[in-house]
Structure formats: C-alpha cells, structure tokens
C-alpha cells in the first residue's frame, strides 16, 4: 500500500475519532448559546490534539511502544494504575454517551425511545469488534464517517459572516452567563483532546506495524486529519450559531440538535444528521472500547490486538465485552445522553495533565524517541493547553453542578 493511501486512510480515521457525540453536543451548545464566540475553544483543542496525536504516532513508530506500554515501563505500576483508573472512569462515561448517541439517532428516525435501542446498539458494537478486524474498524466506519461533511455544506449554505467567524477565533470574555460560557469552553476542549483517541492511535500504529519510515505519514495524518476534524466541529458550531442562536434555542436536549440541518438542507438534512450522529458515535464507541482494552492489556502484559482471534486474547476481549454490556445496561435506565456527554467532556479536561504530562516526559526521553524527541513548541503548546483546560474545568465543574 502506498504512503498516500495510508495518509488518506489515516485522515478518515482521524475524522471518525474527532467528531463524535462530545464534539457535536458541545459545539452545538456553544453556537446556540454564544453564537460564534467560542470558536477559539475548538481551535485551541484542535491544535493540542494535533500535537498529541502526532506525538503518540511518533512514539509508536520510533520506540515500537504504545503509550500505555511505555508509561508502565518508564514510570512503574503506580503511575500506570493512576492513569488506568482515570481513563477507565472517563471512558466508561464517554462510551455510555456514545451508545446513548447512537440510540438517540435511531429514536429520531423511528420514534422508538432511545432506551429500547441501547442494548441492540451495544450488541452491534460488540459484534463488530468480536468479528471484525482492525482494518475494517479503522477504514470502514471512518469512510462512512465522511457523511459528517454535511455540516460543512450546511455552514456554506447558510453564508455566515466571515468577519464574525474571524472574531470568534480570538478568545473573548462572555457578555452574559459567564459560568456556562467557561463550562462549555472546557467541555469543547475535553471533547477535542480525548485521551482515548491517542491511546487508540498509538495502538493502531503498532497493529499496523509502523516504523521510522512512517514519521512523515504520521505527521500528515495528525495535521490534515485532526485539522479537518476541527473544521467539521467548527462547522457544527457555525450552523448552531446561525440556526439556533438568533431565535434563542438552547439545545438542552439532543432531539433539539437534530433541527440544525433541516433548516439549511430540508428533510434530507434531518436524515443526514441522524446518520452522522449514528456513524460518528459508532466509530467513537469502537475506539473507546478498544482503547480501554488496550490500556489494560498493554499495562498488565496480556495478549492483545483486534486482529488476534478472541480466544487468543481472551482477557483483552473480556474487557471490552464487560464494558459495552455495562454501559448499554446503564443507558437503559434513561440517563440523558447530552448531560452525560457534557459532564464527561468537562471531566476529561480536568484530568488532562494527568494524561499529558507523563506522556510529555516520554516524548522527551531519548531512550524512547532517540533523535525524534519533542521540540519546545510542542512541549509548550501541550503543557499550556492542558493546564488551561484543567484549571478552567476545576473551577467550572463544581460551579456548573451547583449553579445548574
């Protein structure tokens, strides 16, 4: 396979991993409540995730270690366990939100309540993971995920003011509801900088047998793929700012968010929204379930790999099986997927330094990355954005919880 095809496939993968229920929900709420004012948060998150994805691919290609594997080896079991526990808690919440997102997409189209869809959707996710290969998951769902481009089409159709979009790229203080503003900003950062994405990516690089010759491919995938993912998330925000903000719709439930595309694109817009929500959540659910199973297996020395038969990696398979079953049953209870999404995204932002700082140490350790260590730009960008997101989350989450 040529490098060009690998880049294309990687870009598709990145799109599937970037735009999921977290990004759709947070950017839709941002546009609805604050117009174009929070585009800067999407930009900041995109920049940080480009660096982190590039770093995780580079670590895998040069050291032949996944992030978790290297973390355990470099820092010992205590640090590994701290990152594992925080990852598992967040991943469970986000996976529940993704299962909820798929179920809600089916509810929108069929009228049958999302709670009834949670178990069938969980079974579908599990079945594909059980039977499918890494290539199928990496490429199949991600190619389908290209349907998300419909948001860019809708944004162009609505002809937004480029001046206002440009102004939104610069951080500004909110004119109203400051608490909600910062909470949504934090949630956008958490949705963009999802640790499961780069754990999955580094494991995928090992599954695809990357070596130092893939450094260029990795860089292209990180910049073009994540950049395009950021563009899609910005398009959701722009459409919400054009459709919801002027009439005062707050998008407090995902059912409301489905109205986004029907105004610019008519009835097809509604069906394309449901398809986009379902496919993006399915892709993210695969990545979350696998990333968690990878985290356990790589740190605890189990057999792992999506291309390995389940019977040859039974504990790896058991982790994602239990995880999917658990969260599917949780969603049957009727938890609101949108509220779950917003809080899990904010919590993701809160724990970011816990994830990114040990990773940065690895990326500056010549024992692992040799001459391919980080430069000062990537170190500074990741440290600054992680700390900013975490501090904002630390203040915004309790205030939002108590203040509603």
């Amino acid at each position: 396979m040529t490098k060009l095809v690998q880049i294309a496939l990687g870009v598709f993968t990145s799109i599937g991993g970037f735009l999921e229920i977290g990004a759709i929900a947070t950017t839709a709420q941002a546009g609805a409540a604050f117009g174009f004012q929070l585009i800067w948060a999407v930009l900041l998150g995109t920049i940080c995730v480009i660096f982190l994805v590039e770093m995780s691919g580079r670590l895998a290609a040069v050291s032949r270690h996944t992030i978790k594997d290297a973390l355990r080896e470099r820092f010992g079991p205590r640090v590994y366990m701290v990152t594992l526990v925080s990852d598992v808690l967040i991943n469970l919440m986000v996976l529940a939100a993704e299962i909820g997102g798929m179920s809600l997409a089916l509810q929108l189209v069929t009228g049958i309540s999302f709670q009834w869809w949670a178990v069938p959707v969980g079974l579908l996710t599990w079945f594909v993971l059980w039977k499918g290969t890494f290539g199928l998951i990496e490429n199949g769902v991600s190619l389908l995920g290209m349907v998300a481009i419909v948001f860019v089409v809708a944004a162009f159709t609505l002809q937004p003011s480029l001046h206002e979009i440009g102004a939104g790229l610069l951080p500004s203080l909110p004119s109203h509801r400051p608490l909600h503003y910062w909470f949504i900003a934090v949630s956008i950062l958490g949705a963009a900088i999802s640790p499961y994405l780069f754990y999955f990516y580094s494991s995928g690089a090992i599954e695809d047998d990357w070596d130092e010759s893939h450094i260029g491919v990795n860089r292209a995938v990180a910049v073009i793929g994540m950049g395009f993912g950021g563009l899609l998330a910005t398009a959701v925000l722009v459409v919400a700012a054009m459709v919801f903000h002027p009439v005062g719709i707050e998008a407090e439930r995902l059912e409301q968010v489905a109205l986004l595309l029907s105004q610019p694109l008519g009835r097809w817009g509604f069906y394309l929204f449901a398809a986009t929500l379902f496919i993006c959540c399915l892709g993210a659910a695969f990545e979350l379930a696998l990333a968690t199973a990878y985290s356990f297996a790589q740190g605890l020395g189990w057999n792992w790999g999506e291309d390995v038969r389940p019977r040859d990696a039974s504990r790896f398979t058991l982790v994602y099986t239990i995880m999917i079953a658990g969260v599917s049953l949780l969603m049957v209870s009727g938890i609101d997927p949108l509220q779950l999404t917003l809080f899990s995204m904010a919590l993701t932002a809160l724990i970011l330094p816990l994830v990114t700082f040990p990773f940065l140490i690895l990326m500056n350790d010549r024992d692992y990355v040799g001459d391919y260590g980080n430069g000062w730009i990537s170190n500074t960008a990741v440290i600054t954005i992680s700390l900013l997101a975490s501090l904002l989350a630390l203040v915004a989450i309790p205030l939002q919880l108590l203040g509603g």
Partner: protein
Amino acid sequence: MIRTRSLLGSSWGARLLLLSVTLVPLGCSSPAERIERATRTASSWAATARLTSEALRIGSLPRGYASQILEAALERKRQLEGQPEWRSVPGEIRGRLEDAARELAASLDEGSDSLPRP
C-alpha cells in the same frame, strides 16, 4: 537502560481539591437566577416548537420527529410548571410556549388521533 521514577507524592492534588471545595459555594444560584433560567428554558422550547412547526409545514421534517419534539416540549413545560419560579416567569413567555406547543400540535393533528395535547 529504561528507568522507573515516581511522579506521585506532590501536594498539588490536595491544593487543587481545596481550591475546588472553596469555590463550590459560589455556584449556588439565587432566586433571580433560577427565574432567569426558567424564562430562558421556556423561551427556548417555544422557539424549538415554532421552528419545528414551520419546518413541518414546508415538509422539511418527518412527522414522527415533530411529534417527538412536541412530547419533549410538553414534558419540559410540565417540569417548569412544577417549579416555584414558574409563576415569576413573564406571562408573555409562558404564553409564547403555550401558543407554540398548540401550533405544533395543530400542524401535527391532521390525520392523527394519538398525538399529545398541550
């Protein structure tokens, strides 16, 4: 040679937790804020119902979805009506939500007997 070092043992976690706990009381909302929130929510659902009615009328939305929006709007309205601050929400906003829900129900009403009534 790969080294093993501990990152733990710093007091930063405790400091951040303390800061978080200190800030928590600031988040308690006042009655005025609760009224403002109820007003905003009622206004938002009125706009949602109105936008859905318009889209339904020109065939931009399937009826099944529009009836889900109506159900959600009515459920939210019932929740708001059960809150003490509902009486302080401006009558115009309350009326707007009532009218929008009725309008959406009327748009959906043709040919169906099983739709929720506002």
